[in-house]
């Protein structure tokens, strides 16, 4: 009789072992995204709007993307368990600080994590911009719908002033790429802004 439950458990274990192989690396193990992000810039006429994003932030406040209308917003999907997220964290911190004066806002989307670990991560890397909690990030991910990068964590999306997806980096972002992307998206808006 124990073999019956045993088989169930074995199966669970078996499935879970695959979880092992992939959980940590849905984003990362699957090919080229492991070390270098894949960059995609979307031409103006091809851009699709991103649905409104709402959620709870790690600091307890509420987030609503409509409050950022008209600004360039960079969303970063991350988790404290995710090793490549650690390598890109200093880049994100630097670009977010440098572009703040240009009116660019950074928002993290924390996934598959726990809030304490996520806060400890932000603490370690001195991340100042807000992040949506794992508990409420599901809706945020779905808001990107068709625009969300297919393979995951980490990934970074740049939303233009009209609320459309302008560029994305699948995998860890490096400084030159991200800062160039961000400043390009900011600059392209300037003629109409001024």
């Amino acid at each position, binding site marked *: 009789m124990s*073999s019956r439950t045993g088989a*169930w458990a074995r199966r669970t274990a078996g499935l879970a072992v695959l979880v092992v192989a992939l959980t940590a690396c849905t984003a990362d193990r699957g090919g080229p995204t492991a070390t270098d992000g894949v960059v995609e810039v979307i031409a103006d006429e091809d851009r699709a709007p991103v649905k409104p994003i709402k959620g709870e932030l790690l600091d307890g406040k509420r987030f609503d993307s409509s409050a950022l209308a008209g600004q360039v917003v960079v969303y970063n999907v991350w988790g404290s368990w995710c090793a490549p997220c650690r390598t890109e964290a200093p880049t994100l911190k630097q670009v977010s600080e440098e572009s703040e004066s240009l009116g660019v806002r950074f928002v993290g989307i924390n996934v598959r994590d726990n809030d304490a670990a996520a806060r400890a991560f932000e603490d370690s890397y001195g991340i100042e911009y807000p992040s949506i909690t794992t508990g409420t990030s599901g809706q945020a991910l779905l808001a990107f719908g068709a625009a969300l990068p297919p393979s995951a964590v980490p990934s970074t999306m740049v939303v233009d002033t009209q609320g459309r997806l302008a560029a994305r980096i699948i995998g860890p972002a490096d400084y030159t790429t991200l800062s160039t992307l961000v400043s390009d998206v900011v600059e392209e808006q300037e003629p109409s802004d001024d």
Partner: protein
Amino acid sequence: MIFNEQTWAELSNGFVYSAIAVYALAMLMYAAETAGRVAGADTVAARPHARSALLGAFGTSLTVLAFLLNLGGVVARGLAASRVPWGNMYEFVLVCALAAGGAYLAFLSKRPIRAFGVWIVAIVLLALGLAVTVLYAPAGELVPVLNSYWLVIHVAAAIVGGGVFTVGAVATGLFLVRRRQERRMSAGVARDRYAASLPAAQTLEQVAHTAHIFAFPIWTFAVIAGAIWAENSWGRYWGWDPKETWAFITWVFYAAYLHAQSTAGWRGVRASWFALAGYAAFLFNFFGVNLWITGLHSYAGV
């Protein structure tokens, strides 16, 4: 007397043991009949010896009785567990023995195939003996994943198919024996008296063919029903789980048999080997896969 689960379970065991005892007697009768037939077999045709015929009739009556006891055992088992009585391997073998016995009796009512009796009863006895000694499991609830009406449909179809395949396999085996003897006889080689006592090869082949074309669609249905259940339970209708694989192998061998039966030069003897291969695959699926190979069907329990 109040019948609770416990008494039903005990009653079921009683029925099963009685069925074994009566089947053993039936086998003795059939064996004696066969011996008489073999002794009386002359070169032209098996002429039933009067006493031997009586023994055979007696064997058939006992087989009917044992079949009914087996049926009682299965029904009581179902009442003991308050569900269909094929939720673990013990019950599965019990019901399969029932199906094989039933299929034999059904065919016997239409065709002169009492010569099968000794073999069918031997197989059924072996199955029941294995069930009560090695596979026995107390009556109880189903594990959650088996709790589905597809259990009733899919497993019942597999069991009925298996029972009729058993008759087909015995007929095929005896056909091969008889056919060889007929060939040798026409070549003037020494004869085999047992084979000479069997029904004509043509009759045996017809019975085998009828059994197979009856069982094959049932088996096909069992496989399809299993696929629907798998889709409902695991999210995919076919995943090459060992049980699924061997059901497929069984199906393909029987398909090969049916095709060989209408291929010039393959009909008869060669085709028969495919049917036997199909039955071997069926048996392996039944015992081998459950006992030796771990797969999603493992919880079917030993």
